């Protein structure tokens, strides 16, 4: 219940699809960075940040 309250507080009571959408956006941004900024260290870092963001939000939704 504590976790659920935390999730509600974090997302101001918004429905679960909101963080899911944010997670998917993070993922999409990561993939697009890999596609359009190849060969650079920046692209790898951006992709990793997208992945981490996505994971955190998925766990907040399903925990």
């Amino acid at each position, binding site marked *: 219940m504590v976790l659920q309250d935390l999730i509600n507080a974090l997302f101001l009571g918004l429905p679960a699809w909101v963080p899911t959408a944010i997670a998917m956006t993070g*993922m999409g941004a*990561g*993939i697009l960075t*890999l596609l359009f900024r*190849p*060969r*650079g260290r920046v*692209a*790898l870092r951006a*992709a*990793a940040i*997208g*992945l*981490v963001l*996505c*994971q955190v939000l*998925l*766990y907040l939704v*399903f*925990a």
Partner: protein
Amino acid sequence: MHPLDLALVAGYLLLITAVGIGLSRRVDSAGDYFLAGRSLSWWVIGLSIIGTNVSAEGYLGAAGGAFNVGIAQANFEWIGAIPAMILAAFVFIPLYWRAGVYSIPEYLGRRYNQWVRLIAALIASVFSIFAIGVALWAIALTLETFIGLPKWLGISISALVIGLYSIAGGLRAVAFTDALQVCIMFCGGLVIVVIGLEQSGGLAGFAAQLTAAEPQHLDLFLTADHPNFPWPGVLLGLSIVLSPAYWCGSQVILQRTLGARTEWDASASMLLAAFGKTLVPLLIVFPGLLAVVLGAEIAYPDMALPWVIKNVLPPGLSGLMFIAIIAALQSTVDSSLNSTALMLTRDVRGVLQADYNPDNDLRFGRWLTLGMLLLGVACAPITGQLEGIYVFLQTLLSLFQGPMLALLVCGAFATWPTPRAGLITLLVDTLCAGVLLLLGTNMLWVAFLTFLGALLLLRVTSSFTRGLTAEELGPLVYGAPAIDTAVTDAGQPGATT
């Protein structure tokens, strides 16, 4: 089975065989066969990693696990994969690349000693043969469920198709066919999700029915005393030990990254695979949950996915999904074959044979691939006696993942681990893992405890044994002085400067 489904299956098998054999024309050396001539681009490798991994963990087994325990099964795809994949992309893949090795046992051999290399290669090879057997058995199970094909015939047909392109084309054929197989797999999986949700009244209806049937099935973390997935075990054993050991130390997974055309391609491929991995639960966990919602009456959990395909999908689409399963499982078998052949050719033969000649690697590797395939076929029926494919594989893994991860992490980041300490740790800790498993300890706890034990043992034994010189440590440890590490194509193991 509907004629349309049969046509799809036959077309797929022909396509895969043709693509694989077509790519075999460019194999002229051991470097071409085992590392695709270091020519693979990041998207091919990334897709190939997903294909190899999904099937390695068991397409059918994961759906069966979800049928049993619910969405907690997705932990193996999320917390039990993504952080470790990021670690592999930024830390271990660049390290292996700079060391210029063909395999992870080769890295361990140079960082510790040739005995560590030999044992690591043998352990991984035995596991791979079992994995091949498990995958072939799963294919046979699926073929029997759908078209009533006897298991021995299903295994034989699968082995023939896989053998043709794996033996001829090596890693390049394996990687490209894997990429194709993953695309088919995702298409088939998404069809199940769409139709399944439609039949169960949308996402809200699905969740409501699932919660009514099995209230715990939407909980990601189960109770601490759960027999298979206790939450502390998931956090400590799975995410801290099993997952990094697999993603940062598995030859089957990492071999294709060593075949990348640049270091950037190698790292980027792992991140692409991580994005795919995030979506994988939708494809392999969802069908298990759908079987619960639709009230499937099945003999054992691994039949959940075949049941869904048979009872939910219309003709044509069920053929597509059937192909997706076969594709997923085939990608495990072909990848395991190639990586096992590499380890036995270079890491086992290279260490044991006094007059080892790398010029014979290509011919030797091809014969070994055939031998491994036949051994996998022989092992396949044994796996049929076990309750759950997935748990069986993970249990085997947990035996040596703890010590292996300790050796990799300490070897990569510290200069103090010594060769002899590495050997002692690997032997003693693997033995301890076996004892713990025999005593009935949960595999996740075994992994975590043996990892801690290995760290301690490695530190203690290193304090009274002789370490490597700074020059020997060179490209093998972060923080050591950098030296030139140009890669030889098919040279002696370890000869990379």
